[in-house]
């Protein structure tokens, strides 16, 4: 330890973090502003609450920075178990808010343990992957990892909170990075594309189209590699057709109407601006009306009129779009991209695996929040209720991701130890 941690720290990430949170509070203030103008620091207003939780989180910054890095790796299992217990406890002591039993009420605060589970799961995944026995090619090891990720996911799904569960899926990026078969990614993406295409074109047309496409591809490949066999293509086609039909079946028979609606609206197959599509339509109106430079802070007419539901939580980005325009909203997107890229870049510099993997976990979870939330607000991704980290109103989320960032900063600063 030659220099103080202050000089070794990843200042860029910290500054982006501070900018994002402050910008978030400003937008929460604008969204929730009522006729009775309250102080920004009033604990009773959402913006005030967010502000004080931000301050409270910052108290942990020096504490976490000066903790020995090994602490996190060694205690990860204990943290994980505590976290799983807290998720289980929800089924007995939890409070229901808008349909999901995801909350504890303690001393006037509502705490969402699933947010902290994101940290603890990341820690355990990182420490497991970095252990000496780690061999990602072994089925038993993979199973172990899937259990670690799956357990909190299942508990969260039963709350039910599908959005948060989706965030845990982001950890597959880590598994990929650490050597999981790349085919998983290709097949995964392939199936997602097939899924969407089936919904758009229907199984029959898609099956016929795929047939011709595959013949074309096979012919092309034959020209360069004359020995290529037909079998894998036939197999691929068979699986695809089966998948198409099952997607159709699952979509129409297993999915509930609200799920179908979400997909249909996202894919533009249904135009319903007053019913289920209202949220997304209003969100797009708000963003679109912002124009290049936006309507200005506190001047968003859509924001003031409360046209976009849940605007201070899940749809906060629509306020950004309306009041700060293209400049503000694309700026925010770039800040997020820089932050995630920065974390990934620094992660790759680590010589030790635990810090690298934890950073990776952090980045991938950030990415899922960013991608799903902004995509949803812009009408590109089906409606899934998860907050935009650092920007949306939500104390536990801010707290959890702040702590995660601080842990990342600690690990990053102490890379040479």
């Amino acid at each position, binding site marked *: 330890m030659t220099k103080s941690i202050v000089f070794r720290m990843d200042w860029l990430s910290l500054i982006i973090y501070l900018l994002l949170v402050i910008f978030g509070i400003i937008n929460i203030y604008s969204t929730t502003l009522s*006729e009775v103008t309250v102080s920004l620091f009033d604990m009773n207003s959402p913006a005030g609450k967010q502000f004080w939780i931000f301050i409270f989180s910052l108290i942990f910054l020096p504490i976490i920075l000066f903790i020995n890095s090994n602490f996190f790796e060694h205690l990860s299992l204990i943290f994980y178990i505590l976290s799983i217990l807290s998720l289980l406890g929800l089924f007995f002591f939890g409070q229901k808010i808008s349909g999901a039993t995801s909350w504890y009420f303690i001393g006037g605060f509502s705490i969402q343990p699933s947010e902290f589970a994101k940290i603890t799961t990341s820690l355990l995944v990182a420490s497991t992957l970095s252990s000496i026995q780690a061999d990602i090619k072994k089925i038993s090891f993979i199973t172990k990892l899937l259990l670690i990720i799956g357990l909190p996911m299942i508990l969260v799904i039963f709350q039910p909170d599908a959005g948060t569960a989706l965030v845990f899926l982001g950890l597959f*990026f880590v598994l*990929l*990075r*650490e*050597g999981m078969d*790349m085919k998983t*990614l290709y097949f995964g993406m392939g199936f997602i594309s097939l899924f969407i295409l089936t919904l758009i074109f229907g199984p029959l047309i898609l099956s016929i189209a795929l047939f011709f496409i595959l013949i074309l591809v096979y012919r092309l490949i034959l020209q360069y590699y004359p020995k290529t066999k037909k079998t894998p293509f036939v197999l691929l086609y068979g699986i695809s057709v089966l998948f198409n039909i099952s997607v159709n079946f699952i979509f129409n028979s297993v999915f509930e109407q609200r799920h179908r609606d979400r997909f249909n609206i996202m894919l533009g197959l249904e135009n319903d601006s007053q019913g289920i599509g209202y949220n997304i339509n*209003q969100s*797009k*109106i*708000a*963003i*679109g*009306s*912002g*124009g*290049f430079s936006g309507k200005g802070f506190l*001047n968003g*007419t*859509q924001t*003031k*009129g*409360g*046209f976009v539901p849940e605007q201070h939580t899940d749809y906060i980005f629509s306020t950004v*779009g*309306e009041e700060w*325009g*293209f400049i503000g*909203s*694309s700026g925010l*997107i*770039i800040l*997020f*991209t820089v932050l*995630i*890229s920065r974390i*990934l870049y620094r992660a*790759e510099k680590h010589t030790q695996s635990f810090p690298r993997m934890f950073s*990776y976990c952090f*980045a*991938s979870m950030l*990415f899922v929040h*960013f*991608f799903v939330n*902004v*995509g949803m607000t*812009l*009408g*590109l991704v089906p409606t899934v209720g998860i907050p935009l980290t650092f920007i949306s109103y939500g104390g536990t989320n801010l707290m959890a991701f702040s702590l995660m960032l601080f842990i990342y900063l600690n690990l990053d600063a102490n890379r040479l130890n």
Partner: protein
Amino acid sequence: MIRKIVLLAFTLVSCLLFIFQLMALQLFNSEYSERSLNNAIEKRPVYPTRGLIYDRNGTLWVANKPVYDLMIVPENLNSFDTLELTSGLNISKEELLNQIKDAKNFSKKLPSVILRQLSMAVAAKLQEKMWKFPGFYFQKKSTRDYLLPIGSNILGYTSETNRHEIKPSASKVLEVDNLKLLGVNYAVNDSEKSAREEKNLLSKKNNKSKDSFSPINEILENYDPGEMIGRQGIEKTYEKKLRGKKGIQFFQKDRFNRIIGPYDEGKFDIEPEAPENIILTIDAILQDYGESLMMNKRGGIVAIEPQSGEVLALVTAPSYDPNTLIGRDRSKYFNKLIKDTIAKPLFDRSLQAEYSPGSPFKTLNALIGLQEKVISPETVFTCDKGHYYGRGAFMGCHNPIGTKSDLIKGIYSSCNSYFAKTFVRIINSQSTPSEGVDLWKKHLEKFGLGDFLGYDLPIGKRGFIPDSNYYNNWYPRGSWGPNTLISNSIGQGEILTTPIQMANFTATIANRGFFKKPHFKKTINDSLYPKNQTLIDAKHFETVIEGMHQVVERGTARIAKIRGIDVCGKTGTVENFIRLNNEKTQLTDHSIFIAFAPKDNPKIAIAVFIENGYWGARWAAPIASLMIEKYLTGEVKRNWLENKMLKGSLMAEYEKPLLDKPFSIND
């Protein structure tokens, strides 16, 4: 190493994807900003309260008073005592419940009107109990308040605009301007732009409007549903001035379409422009007096200040209280008025009724005769208790046989023979009767006869002065001469005049040869009303005026004499006919009187027309005389005459033809 960049690639691709989508939404699509304006901003017009109307002495005549619409927001409804509410409002429970149902069907969150235009008294009584009726509230509006219940024919009335007065394009233009107003990048497409410029040029060329074309101005001038518009009288003529210019307020709406406050602190609001108040030329006291005198009679009174052309009183009878045409019961009263086709209270007899002018018209024939030198003041004609103008053709006269009259006596004794002979001389003064008639008409037109006078009220009639063409049409072979149109010599026959035309030619005589266009709005700009000169020399007027003076001093209208004031006048008694059971039936004569006073420096010229009042001296002359006395001295000393006129009724006379049995006239 592809694994290392998978997540990075995902992040960067998402970043680009999002920015592309933002560009699509925010930079290359104006649809969203338009929709945002439509659903988040409400434009509300602000109406200035209508301009006030004063009489010539500064007495406030027409003001505005608040009325209240009972409104409801159905979502705020709670159980309430329907009986208590309906008893205060004077409507049935079913009606109330129906209205509430309609309101609910319209919108649960937006206000609807339950009852329109409740008076302050009704609203005030309920106001203190409103807490018992959640969801209901009163919305204040403004309506006319006629402080003096007179002059409905002058003032006219206001009512809500109807559908075809509202321009449908207005709202669209407003959207465009809003966009610009709000700084939204909105390009007016080229064709629209060039259309506007063209219109701009046109308006400059025609010099019709000095303001350059501006859609926002156009919008502000357009009428909205429910806005009040002047329908008749002064309210219509001076609609633009009395209305002022409305403004626009912009409000922020919430997702339930409710207004949650001003938009951007009212930065874009357009202030309404205050209307102009109008001072009338009418003397309210004289008008009021005239209307009282006309009670239970039919006819009109027009009084004009000769030098200025200002109308001092314009009375028509029967009339109505202007206050009945405001508020909730407006249509009920209006229907009653419009359906009365016998008394026709909405028919302004002073402006619209075309009568034969009768004997007062003799003054004009005398003037024309003098100017054309066919008679002189000394010309004497002998009356044979009438005038023979052809075989079996005789025009009676009330003067005894052998009465020798010069012009002055001819006037004050109203000798029919004298003016028949004068008239024949006028027609014969030219080489053909046609030229004679046309010359005669040319003179009369200079007195404002046979044409609308151009006064500032929206209704009127031309009257009628025949010319040679008219007679050539009737007698195509030219077989007509002065005797054919002899009735015109004494103001019967083909000619028709309205009471305001009669008052106007009286004013012309009083002015010794000119008149100024009669008008109802006071102005300091004298040049608006140039002198209209007649073709007759001033000296001839003195002769005729002397004759008219003698009418009151010793002639047919001695009853019109006022102590201390030299009144000049001329009576008239006009035969008139109606068709009854398909037969031409004569009714009791109309009673007419024209007068001005004082003789030198006249201050008032007046024409009084009383339908079926018989002798001019019986009703018209006393009424004119009382009006003159009231106006010039401020009080009436002849109480016996005043009482007789105020209490006198001709209703029995008017009922005669309706009773479906034979009746006598002129008794």
